[in-house]
């Protein structure tokens, strides 16, 4: 594809504009949901189940209601029983995990509400619980939901070609089982909601990544009132990472406020955020790759079992994405992914940065290294020979043109819009000094060093319905109205830059109004690295449409045939006369509003981002400790709209996942089903001293589909991290790691099992 003509000379896109509202954030002026107060507001607290599976026989709140300051208690009897999600009701007389919501209290202060929780008497009838997905699939296992524990009743199967025929052609077949453990998203801001009723109309302020696409319809279902009577606002988000909704919080807060007759704010504690939020699911991935004598892949097959926890929420998408590496990353005519999402009585899983992609890529990229090692091929060379190219997979396209976006095809014959994987591999290798790499386990001694590489691919944004609205007031004020949330990734800044580029204005001239159902057009969920690509193009088109109207009006005002827009001025063709944008806006006679809506993507090309990561580590063979010495992240996200924000996002993504790779894990007591470490201290998030500064490289060319050539950025950099570290450890110490996180215990066990302990 060829690049569109309008990207030749850009003045705002591609420049390091400062993050919008960062000064307000630094100085504490930004108001997040839990920072909001309303007159007469009460504080709500949630009573949670101590049992992983139990019937609620009776809830007696009479003693709680007599305590000072207590205004209302909400129990399952008060909650409407229609589902608010495919397997979720607002409150049920049945709990499916330890920590699940049972009742809520509204009181004058949070402490009074806490006191009241202790005074609520609940009689539980404990039921047999199942805490392991393999056990949950066994005949006779306790059912978490009626209809069996395999979500949807069958596994997800996605394939191209014929893997059986492919394996029949293979000279060698490599296989392995790879495990990834559950961990908590732990955004710094916990979930919070503030509900206020005026008659039968509700205003809900909430931590949200989709006020339009998820909160409002969910509230309408849960409360049984029309969506038009509900306004949802997210004033600011303290981190999302693809998480932060998919819960009952909004509905319960609204029900509690209605019952109390006062505004109510509920703010989750850190412990509740881990228990009642949505965590990253544990997976077991069995991977087989068949190769020709020279290592060329001819068949790739992955079977994944995901512990969905007690509720599926966005686990369907997580399951789908777990196959992304096996299906797309290497050129291979035959590939098959089979994903089983399984209910258990663990806290619910949900979506977290990268969904299943980092989990599946871990298996693919470690096994690729094992193939290369077995065949005596340098792992970088192996990837340079076999990585998927811009041509896509071999074979013939069967998906109809209009079905490309929803179907996410994996067949051959559908090219990528752009693919700079090769440049990422070559330039990244040069930066880390790949030539220094020695054979696996060659270094003697207690502390040994090694280099590792891993690739990643990620689809971002295609298939999303995206909308933007641009307002130019007669005063000249320019405002971008967007339904989506800036969860902290910087979308407000980047989208304002795109509008500014189209209007030839400085970015500061564009105001942004976001995440308020009363003031913004519908917006998609902030998920799947969607925003810049999908809404960015809607912004560009809305702004270009506004520019066109300004040009027409200016020509009339100047009495010329045509005018052009340049640096915020409308100039006659001959260049002799001009008007400021404000003057033309004043001459429009009314506020100019332009809208654009599109179904993001292409009907001819798959739009994916790519990455190649390189790690240098030191492994202490006495204690299994891994130290990361250097990390190079080479990204293809097309044109980078804001290099300053983008570098921070990639660096942050890598550091976040280095912590997950080495440490983060949720532990459940196998007898009680209780989560043991729902806190920062015990869940061990990355701290500022843990890793060296990440070296970030942007190597993409402008993409022909994305706005000004941009592609997805938020999640792609997390995808290769686990495998880059595992492969560097293999190079350093000669041991293969098949389970994330790579804790010292697991590394020691691998050293011992593979005979690589210090003699």
């Amino acid at each position, binding site marked *: 594809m060829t690049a569109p003509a309008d990207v030749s000379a850009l003045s705002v896109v591609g420049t390091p504009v400062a993050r919008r509202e960062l000064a307000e954030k630094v100085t*504490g002026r930004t108001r997040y949901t839990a920072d909001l107060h309303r007159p007469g507001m009460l504080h709500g607290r949630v009573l949670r189940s101590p049992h992983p599976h139990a019937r609620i026989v009776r809830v007696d709140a009479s003693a709680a209601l007599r305590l000072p300051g207590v205004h209302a208690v909400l129990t399952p009897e008060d909650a409407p029983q229609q589902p608010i999600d495919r397997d979720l009701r607002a409150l049920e007389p049945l709990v499916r995990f330890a920590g699940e919501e049972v009742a809520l209290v509204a009181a004058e202060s949070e402490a009074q509400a806490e006191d009241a929780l202790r005074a609520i008497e609940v009689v539980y009838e404990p039921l047999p619980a199942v805490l392991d997905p393999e056990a949950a699939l066994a005949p006779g296992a306790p059912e978490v939901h009626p209809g069996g524990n395999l979500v949807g009743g069958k596994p997800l199967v996605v394939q191209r070609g014929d893997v059986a025929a492919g394996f029949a052609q293979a000279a060698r077949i490599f296989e392995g089982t790879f495990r990834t453990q559950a961990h908590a998203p732990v955004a710094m801001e916990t979930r919070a909601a503030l509900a206020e009723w005026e008659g039968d109309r509700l205003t809900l302020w909430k931590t949200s990544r989709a006020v339009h696409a998820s909160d409002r319809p969910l509230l309408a279902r849960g409360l049984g009132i029309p969506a038009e009577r509900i306004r949802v606002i997210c004033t600011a988000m*303290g981190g999302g990472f693809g998480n932060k909704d998919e819960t009952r919080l909004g509905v319960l807060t609204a029900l509690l406020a209605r019952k109390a007759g006062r505004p109510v704010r509920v703010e989750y504690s850190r412990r509740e955020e881990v228990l009642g939020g949505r965590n990253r699911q544990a997976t077991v991935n069995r991977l087989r790759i068949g190769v020709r004598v020279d290592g060329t892949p001819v068949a790739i097959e992955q079977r994944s079992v995901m512990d969905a926890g007690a509720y599926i929420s966005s686990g369907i998408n997580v399951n789908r994405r777990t196959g992304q590496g096996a299906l797309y990353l290497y050129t291979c005519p035959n590939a098959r992914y089979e994903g089983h999402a399984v209910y258990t009585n663990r806290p619910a899983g949900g979506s977290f940065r990268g969904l299943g992609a980092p989990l599946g890529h871990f298996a693919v990229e470690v096994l690729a290294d094992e193939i290369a090692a077995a065949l005596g091929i340098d792992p970088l060379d192996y990837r340079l020979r076999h990585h998927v190219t811009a041509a896509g997979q071999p074979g013939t396209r069967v998906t109809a043109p209009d079905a490309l976006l929803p179907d996410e095809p994996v067949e051959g014959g559908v090219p990528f819009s752009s693919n700079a994987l090769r440049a990422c591999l070559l330039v990244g290798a040069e930066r880390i000094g790949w030539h220094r790499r020695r054979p696996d386990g060659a270094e003697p001694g207690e502390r040994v060093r090694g280099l590792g590489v891993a690739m990643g691919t990620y689809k971002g944004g295609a298939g999303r319905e995206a909308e933007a609205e641009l307002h130019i007031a007669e005063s000249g004020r320019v405002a971008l109205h967007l339904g989506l949330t800036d969860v902290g990734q910087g979308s407000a800044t980047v989208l304002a830059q795109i509008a500014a580029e189209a209007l030839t204005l400085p970015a500061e001239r564009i105001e942004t109004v976001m995440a308020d159902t009363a003031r913004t057009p519908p917006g998609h969920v902030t998920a799947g690295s969607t925003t810049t690509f999908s809404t960015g193009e809607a912004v560009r088109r809305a702004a270009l449409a506004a520019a066109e109207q300004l040009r027409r009006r200016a020509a009339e005002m100047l009495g010329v045939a045509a005018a052009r827009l340049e640096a915020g001025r409308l100039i006659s063709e001959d260049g002799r006369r001009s008007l400021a944008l404000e003057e033309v806006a004043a001459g429009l006679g009314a506020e100019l509003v332009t809208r654009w809506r599109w179904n993001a993507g292409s009907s001819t090309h798959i739009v994916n981002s790519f990455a190649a990561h390189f790690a240098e580590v030191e492994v202490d063979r006495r204690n299994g400790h891994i130290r990361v010495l250097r990390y190079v992240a080479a990204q293809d996200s097309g044109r980078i709209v804001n290099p300053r924000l983008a570098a921070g996002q990639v660096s942050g993504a890598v550091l*976040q996942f280095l912590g997950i790779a080495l440490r983060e894990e949720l532990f459940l007591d196998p007898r009680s089903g209780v989560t043991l470490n729902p806190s920062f201290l015990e869940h061990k998030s990355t701290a*500022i001293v843990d890793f060296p500064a990440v070296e970030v490289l942007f190597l993409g060319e402008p993409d022909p589909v994305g706005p000004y050539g941009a592609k997805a950025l938020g999640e792609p950099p997390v995808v290769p991290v686990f495998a880059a570290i595992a492969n560097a450890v293999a190079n350093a110490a000669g041991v293969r790691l098949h389970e994330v996180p790579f804790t010292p215990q697991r590394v020691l066990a691998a050293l011992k099992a593979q005979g690589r302990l210090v003699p």
Partner: protein
Amino acid sequence: MTPARATVTLTVNGVARTLDVEPRETLLDVLRERLDLTGAKRACDRGECGACAVLVDGRPINACHVLALQVRGREVVTIEALAGRPEFQPILAAFIHHDAGQCGFCTPGFALAAHALLQRHPAASDALIRWELVGHICRCNAYDGLAAAVAAARDARKPS
């Protein structure tokens, strides 16, 4: 059962305050819920993350880990007041230039800690800067920007 109450007199951002509190109320509860000073954030409520940092008699502490009763007669400064001081301006400028915050929830705590550490160690090494900030968690992991910003603020504040 009516909880006991106590009177606490303290100075917050230069203003003397007398408050009627429950003994179990933390300084963070009082700042956020009674005085509407929400720049100090509640992210863990048990002294693990630094998002609620404030200055008490000039020293940074986690406001969630101190009872209001324990700061009787003390001088508390929150990020809202610190933000207006001249010596804070190089920190603010450096945070913006180096994009030292993404979602921003931990950022006031980091900025306040950066101020305190540069007061104590005007010539802090890059390594010391990181170690002095180790009690603060940023889940966006904007750590590279944070470390660069504090180093830049140190350099800007150095007498030339």
